[in-house]
Each structure stands twice: as structure tokens, then as C-alpha cells.
């Protein structure tokens, strides 16, 4: 079915069991790697509409889509969502996306591809919320740290990150040691499609990756070393390539996250994560913002980490705080992750007191929390009710 230069292939999903939102999301993230020159993919009922540049036939697209759905659906279990806490506010949410208002007001300046500059009242709200998190961390004895931008590729390979999330990695590479390459880069005036392959050929080894989380810095700094029980906190920018759905404050390619990383024995990690989850629930409840705490999965690529996905769910190693945003959609705004010994073992981090050592981390996505707050109280932050402003420390 031609559509200008594009082609639309509709694929019926009838007969595939256990399809739900997480399966659709995982499929849409994977499709750009399987369908040549994919433009978009949208689900409508039990049909998915795939728009592409026509380099694949209808049959090839249909086969790729159905194969992907079957593989991914089998890696999820159809349990009911395991909600361990739920609070509902009666207050209405904004109907339209407050992001657009904030852009018009100059408090958000888009710089392209899911990256933004923040200023004004929104930036003050950013700092105020982060200060609340930092106070929580410090009240639990966490030590403040400040981190660089990139993590060594080797660290992410050894820790298993690239095996599970290859689609999210942004590699960083210098121009290779060649005068010819250097001159070609200096003389480049455009980034036309035909120039792109040449640019790649002028680059050297991508030995660094823009950090996808805050905690990998913390682990990298302690690699092959010893640690005692304790907490560490930092805020930093996180970078993730998003194959689809880059969208306002909800899904960015560069975003801010405050993390608290925990080292210790299993029970110590669980107790710290429980306390941080409870603090988060209490905080939003105090603000009269609806909140759920639910068991969750990491966004593993397709079915590449089927065992990890099932293991995480079966033993509830990842929980997420979900908050409602404009229009009534719920988004994950914080997560509480018990790694057990998986990361410390892979990076040879050992206990300084001969005890068993595990790790965990809690992370709050600052932009997602801000989106939930402006969806609840409106984008005019300086006009929010005094109770909300006081609770947030504004």
C-alpha cells in the first residue's frame, strides 16, 4: 500500500497470546533494527501498522513482526501487575501536555532529539525536588559524589549492560590518529546521508559510552576494590538512545537522575530500598499526588535477556513508582533495584569486612517527576497552592 515514498504494512496480531503494553513497547523498540528504513509503527487494537521506506516486502515485514511478537510475548508472564502500594488523589490532572506551555513560556528550550535546557520556575522546581532527595540520602548516611559524563565501554560490557540494552548505548569516539581523517573532519561542511559513512570511517575506537545511568560511575570507581556497607548518592545526566517515542518530558535521550547506591549484605540492601520506596510514596501522598509502587522489569532489548526478565519479575528485584500525568497516563518516575551480587561479582568488587556483598540502587527520573507535578498542579509553578510549594521547599 504506497503512501508517497513510504509503504504501509498492516499486520494482524490475532492468535498471539499474552500481548500487553510492555510487549508492544518492546516490539516497537526492536522493530527499527529488523525492518529496513522503518518510519513508524503504531498499534491499533489487534493490528500493528508499520510504515517503512519500502525496502522490505509486505511478507518480509509481516514475518519479522510476527516472529518478534511471538518471541517477546513468551519472555513476559501474564501475571496481574503486582501493586504493593496504591494511593489515589481526587484532584484532576491537566488534560493537555504542560510541556507545550513550558516551552511557550521559555522555561524549556528544546535543543533537538529529546534534549532540553531548563530555566525559570521549572529549573527552581528541579533543584527543590533534587534537594529533597539529597536530604533523604544524607539522612540515611549517604556520601555525596560527583561523576563524569562517560563510562568505559569495557565496564559496560563486563557488567552486562551492553548485552541487555545494546539499543540504548550512545558510543563516544574521537577522530582516529590520522592526519587525513583529521583533515576530512575539519573540512566537513554538512552531515548529508552520503557523508555519514565517511564520518564513521574517520572515527577511532569507541572506548567510552555516554553514561546510561548514574550508578555505573559508582561501580566503575570501585572496580577491583573493596567496599564496606553504606550508601552513596549523586545526581548526573543519563544518556539513552531511544529508537522510538522520544516525547516531551516523558522520554528523553538526555535526562537527569538522582541515585542512591547501596552496598552491603542482602538484608541491608532490601531495608534501604524499602525505606527509600516508602519515603517516595509518603512524599507524593503528602503532596496529594496519586502514586503506585509496582513490581517491574528493565527495558531489555527484545527477548535477548529472557532469563533476566523472568528472574527480575519472579523475585521482585525491580519495583517502580508510577505517577499519573496529563490525560491520565501513568509513567514510571523512580525505581528501586536489588542487583543481588550480579554487578559486584562481574566487576570484582568485594566486601572490606569478609561479609557477603550485594548492591542495589534507587533512581528518581527528575524530568518525569516534574512532568507528574506540572500535570497535577498545572504548568504555572509560581501559582501552585502554598501546601504544595511548602512541601517541595519552594
Amino acid at each position, binding site marked *: 500500500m504506497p503512501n508517497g515514498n513510504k509503504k504501509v504494512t498492516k499486520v494482524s496480531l490475532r492468535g498471539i497470546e499474552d500481548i500487553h503494553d510492555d510487549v508492544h513497547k518492546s516490539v516497537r523498540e526492536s522493530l527499527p533494527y529488523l525492518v529496513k528504513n522503518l518510519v513508524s509503527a503504531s498499534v491499533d487494537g489487534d493490528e500493528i501498522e508499520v510504515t517503512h521506506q519500502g525496502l522490505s516486502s509486505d511478507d518480509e515485514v509481516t514475518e519479522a513482526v510476527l516472529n518478534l511478537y511471538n518471541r517477546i510475548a513468551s519472555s513476559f508472564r*501474564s501475571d496481574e501487575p*503486582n501493586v504493593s502500594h496504591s494511593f489515589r488523589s481526587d484532584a484532576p490532572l491537566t488534560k493537555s501536555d504542560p510541556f507545550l506551555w513550558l516551552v511557550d513560556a521559555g522555561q524549556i528550550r528544546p535543543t533537538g532529539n529529546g534534549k532540553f535546557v531548563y530555566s525559570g520556575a521549572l529549573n527552581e522546581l528541579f533543584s527543590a525536588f533534587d534537594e529533597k532527595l539529597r536530604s533523604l540520602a544524607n539522612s540515611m548516611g549517604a556520601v555525596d559524589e560527583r561523576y563524569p559524563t562517560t563510562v568505559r565501554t569495557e565496564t559496560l560490557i563486563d557488567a552486562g549492560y551492553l548485552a541487555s540494552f545494546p539499543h540504548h548505548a550512545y558510543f563516544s569516539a574521537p577522530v582516529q590518529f590520522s592526519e587525513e581523517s583529521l583533515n576530512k573532519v575539519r573540512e566537513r561542511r554538512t552531515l548529508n546521508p552520503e557523508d555519514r559513512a565517511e564520518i564513521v570511517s574517520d572515527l577511532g575506537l569507541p572506548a567510552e559510552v555516554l553514561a546510561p545511568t548514574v550508578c555505573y560511575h559508582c561501580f566503575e570507581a570501585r572496580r577491583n576494590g573493596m567496599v564496606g556497607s553504606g550508601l552513596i548518592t549523586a545526581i548526573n545526566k543519563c544518556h539513552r538512545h531511544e529508537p522510538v517515542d522520544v516525547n516531551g518530558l516523558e522520554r528523553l535521550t538526555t535526562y537527569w537522575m538522582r541515585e542512591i547506591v547501596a552496598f552491603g549484605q542482602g538484608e541491608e540492601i532490601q531495608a534501604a530500598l524499602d525505606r527509600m520506596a516508602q519515603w517516595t510514596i509518603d512524599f507524593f501522598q503528602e503532596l496529594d499526588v496519586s502514586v503506585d509502587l509496582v513490581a517491574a522489569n528493565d527495558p531489555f532489548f527484545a527477548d535477548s535477556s529472557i532469563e533476566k526478565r523472568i528472574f527480575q519479575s*519472579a*523475585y521482585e528485584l525491580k519495583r517502580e513508582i508510577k505517577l499519573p500525568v496529563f490525560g491520565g497516563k501513568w509513567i514510571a518516575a523512580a525505581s528501586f533495584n536489588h542487583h543481588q551480587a550480579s554487578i559486584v561479582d562481574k566487576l570484582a568488587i568485594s566486601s572490606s569486612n569478609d561479609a557477603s556483598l550485594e548492591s542495589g540502587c534507587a533512581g528518581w527520573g527528575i524530568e518525569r517527576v516534574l512532568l507528574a507535578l506540572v500535570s497535577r498542579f498545572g504548568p504555572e509553578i509560581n501559582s501552585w497552592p502554598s501546601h504544595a510549594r511548602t512541601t517541595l521547599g519552594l
Partner: protein
Amino acid sequence: MITDKLNQIIAECFKVETGNITRETTAEQVPGWDSISHIRLILQVEKAFNVRFRNQEIGKMKNVGDLVDLISEKTGG
């Protein structure tokens, strides 16, 4: 029947003798039976018995006996 077939799968997975596997056997007692290999075993069991476990069922299994009972419940055996 279920026990024999399951013990065979466990024995092949972890290179142990079937005679050493009882209802009371736990993952900690079998070398190599770690968290991820446990899930691999579960996937093999699902395929062999044509059953599907829920996340919460997987999380609650404590020993081989629990797994036998769950398979039995799902296959009507």
C-alpha cells in the same frame, strides 16, 4: 512419571546423577544452580511439560518437590 522426567531434566542441566535428586533438593545443594540457570531450567521444564508458570509461582518455589507439585497441578497429573 513427572518426577522421573523432571529429575532427568535437572540432571542434564546441572550434570548431576538423578539418584541424588529428591523432593527436598534445593538449588543451594546443586553446584551451578544459580539464579539465571534456575530460570533456564524453568524454561526447559515449561517446554518439556507444555506448561507455563506465573512469575509469582516461580518466586515461591523452594525445592524440587514444589516444582513437581506445580507441574502436577498444571498437567492434571
